[in-house]
Every structure is written in C-alpha cells, then in structure tokens.
C-alpha cells in the first residue's frame, strides 16, 4: 500500500513543483502522469486533478489578493463566463469516450506549450473602454518608480468569449487553463501581465471548483487517488513557488514547453491506438 500511496504522492509533488515553476499549473502534468504512469482511467485523473487545482489556486491566491495584484472585479465578471464553460465541460466529460478525451488533452498541451514560449507585451492602457469603465474594472499597479500607476481595461466581450472556452477545457480535461486565461486578459483585455497572472490564478479556483463539484456529486472523484494527489500537488506547488524567484524563467519555459510537446505526442499516440 505504501508503494502505491508513496508513488502517487511523489508524482503529485513533482507535478505541482513543475506546474508552479512553468506557470502552467499542476493539472497539465498530473493528468498525463496519472494516466500514463499510474494507469488510472482519464475520468479518475481529471476528477483528482480538478480538486488539486482548487487547492493550488487557493494557496497561491492568498498573497496575490493581499498584495493587491488580483483584479477582483475583473475576476468576478469573467467568472460568469468560465463557470458556464466549466459546467458544460464537466458534463461532457461524463459522456465523451476516453480516446477522444486523451486526444483533446494532447491538443491542449500543444497549445499550452505554444503560449508558454510566446512573448507577452506589457504596455499599460491609460483608459478603459466605455463598458469596462461602467463596470469600474480599471485598477492600479506599482510602477517602476514604486508609485501606483492606474491602468484601464478593454474588450470585455472578447475576453469573456475566450473564458467560456477556457472553462470548457477546464471541466473537460481537469486543468486550470491558466495559459488561455492569461492570454485572454493580457492580449485581448490589455491588463498588465502580473495582474493577468494573479487574476487568472484566482479565477481558476472557481472554474475548477465548478467542475470538481460536478465530478464529486457524480461519484467520479476517487478519494483513494484524489486525496494524496491534492496534498502532493499543493506541497509541490508551494515548493516550486519558493524556488521560482531564483530560477531562470526563460530557460525553464523552453524546457517545460519541450516536455509538454513530448507528453502531448505520447497522449495523442495512446488516443489513436485506443480508437
């Protein structure tokens, strides 16, 4: 028993650690880890991953919210879109076959690998567009000189549309879809990059929570797997976030993007042989 439990814990700690270092979250690594190495069905892996994503999001959000990096109003408005997507995705996960899920997961990993190596712009928008102004979505961030600099927000409908897709992927595949959320806020809505990351991380809790509740009440969360995975991923993520400030982020991102592509190929191959 200790071999199984120890193996699951080690896998989860590694996934949480790599997820925090790469900025992609533990879900992208724990799901294929459980399917390929622990030989559990995709549904069990997705259910366990969703719960661990809720835990890591909550853990990382504590400091981001307290220090003012999370834009709480943007998060609340966009959560309407991600929750809608997450419920749809979690419901579909119960009816879509295992090979199709594995193939979708492989495609999502390739997309995450692409986002993790593309460059992000960080020019602050001086004024919000009328809709965002009406919703008071703008905020302030510390500038280079330490003084608070205001920023505006734009294109809420575009951002919300991408958030629905991020939600569907999260509920379907058991991931936080942080890469897509950050892209929506950073590229489309022009939020500062660090605010986008902090807000995405905060929202991930609700997106994954909505999916996890569907899985839990459907009886698709196996406590024997999900409990050690939740503890391990959270511990690993905590360790990763401690090391992150001292790490060479650019090099790490390229390394993890390569790993993601390799795992995507393995998952894709499994899916094709299962059809």
């Amino acid at each position: 028993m200790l071999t199984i439990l120890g193996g699951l814990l080690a896998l989860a700690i590694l996934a949480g650690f790599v997820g925090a270092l790469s900025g992609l979250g533990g879900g992208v690594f724990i799901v294929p880890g459980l399917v390929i190495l622990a030989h559990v069905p995709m549904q069990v892996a997705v259910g366990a991953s969703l719960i661990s994503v809720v835990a890591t999001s909550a853990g990382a959000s504590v400091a981001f919210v307290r220090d003012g990096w999370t834009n709480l109003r943007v998060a609340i408005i966009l959560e309407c879109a991600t929750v809608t997507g997450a419920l749809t995705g979690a419901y579909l996960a119960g009816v879509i076959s295992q090979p199709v899920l594995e193939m979708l997961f492989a495609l999502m990993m390739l997309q995450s690998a692409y986002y993790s190596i593309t460059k992000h712009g960080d020019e602050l928008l001086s004024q919000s567009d009328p809709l965002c102004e009406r919703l008071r979505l703008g905020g302030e961030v510390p500038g280079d000189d330490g003084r608070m600099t205001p920023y505006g927000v734009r294109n809420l409908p575009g951002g919300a549309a991408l958030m629905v897709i991020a939600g569907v992927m999260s509920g379907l595949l058991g991931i936080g879809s942080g890469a897509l959320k950050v892209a929506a806020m950073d590229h489309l809505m022009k939020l500062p990059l660090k605010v986008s990351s902090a807000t995405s991380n905060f929202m991930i809790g609700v997106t994954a929570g909505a999916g996890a509740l569907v899985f839990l009440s459907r009886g698709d969360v196996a406590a024997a797997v999900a409990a050690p995975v939740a503890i391990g991923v959270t511990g690993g993520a905590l360790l990763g976030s401690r090391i992150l400030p001292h790490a060479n982020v650019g090099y790490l991102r390229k390394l993890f993007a390569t790993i993601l592509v390799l795992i995507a190929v393995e998952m894709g191959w499994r899916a094709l042989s299962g059809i």
Partner: protein
Amino acid sequence: MNQPERYSPSPSDAEEDRILRTWTPLMLRTVLIVSTIVLIVGIAATVLHSPGFYIDRFHALQRGQMHATEQFSMIIRQAAAGDPHAIMTIGLYVLTLVPLVRVAFTFVLFLKDRDYIYVAATAYVLSGLILGMALGRIG
C-alpha cells in the same frame, strides 16, 4: 486639452476592495488548512487501519470500476464512525467548498453595498456552482 479621465476608486469602492483584500486571503487560508488536516487524518487512518481496502480500491479504479454515488449524509455518518475513506472524501468536499465560500462572501458584501451589477454577477457564479452539484446528481 483635457486630460483623459483616469481610474480613481470612489470611497465605497475603496472600502469594498479593502474588505475583500482583508477577508478573502483569510477565508482561503482557513478552508485550505482545515481540508489539508482532514485529508492527512484520512490518509493516516487508511495507512493504519485499512491498507487492504485501499489497495483493492486502487486496483478496482485501474480496472475502471468507480464507486456508486454516495449520499452526503451517509459519508458524514461513516466519517463520524472513523471510516478512513469517508474522512478523505469529507476533506475533498471541504476543499471544493473554498470557491463556494469565497463567492458567497462577495455576494453578501455587494448586496450590503447595493452594488447590483456585481450582486447579479456573483449570484450567477454562485448558482452555477450549486448547479454543478445538481448536474452531477442528474447526469
């Protein structure tokens, strides 16, 4: 030339932000600590009292055999009786309640401040989370 209108929070917005930034991390941390303790107790109890059950359960999962949906009241009763598997399940439920508690808190805060756009948004998210549980039972 007029300066473009810049972001400046109104006093009520600033107060809302202050309350959210103080209470949200506190709630997140508390629920996280409680659920982690329950999960660790559940795992420790499994190791000490029912390792055989755990191994059987894990191999059954690998063969794709899930447990039937259990009634929440039954899980509570079993956990109270010291059943390790039920204790782990309770820990997972508590963990999943993190976002629910957080959204419920913001809903009450915005309602108190009569900030109706955000009352509607949080009510939508909250009902989505509750629907999640119902969907699982229906689906």
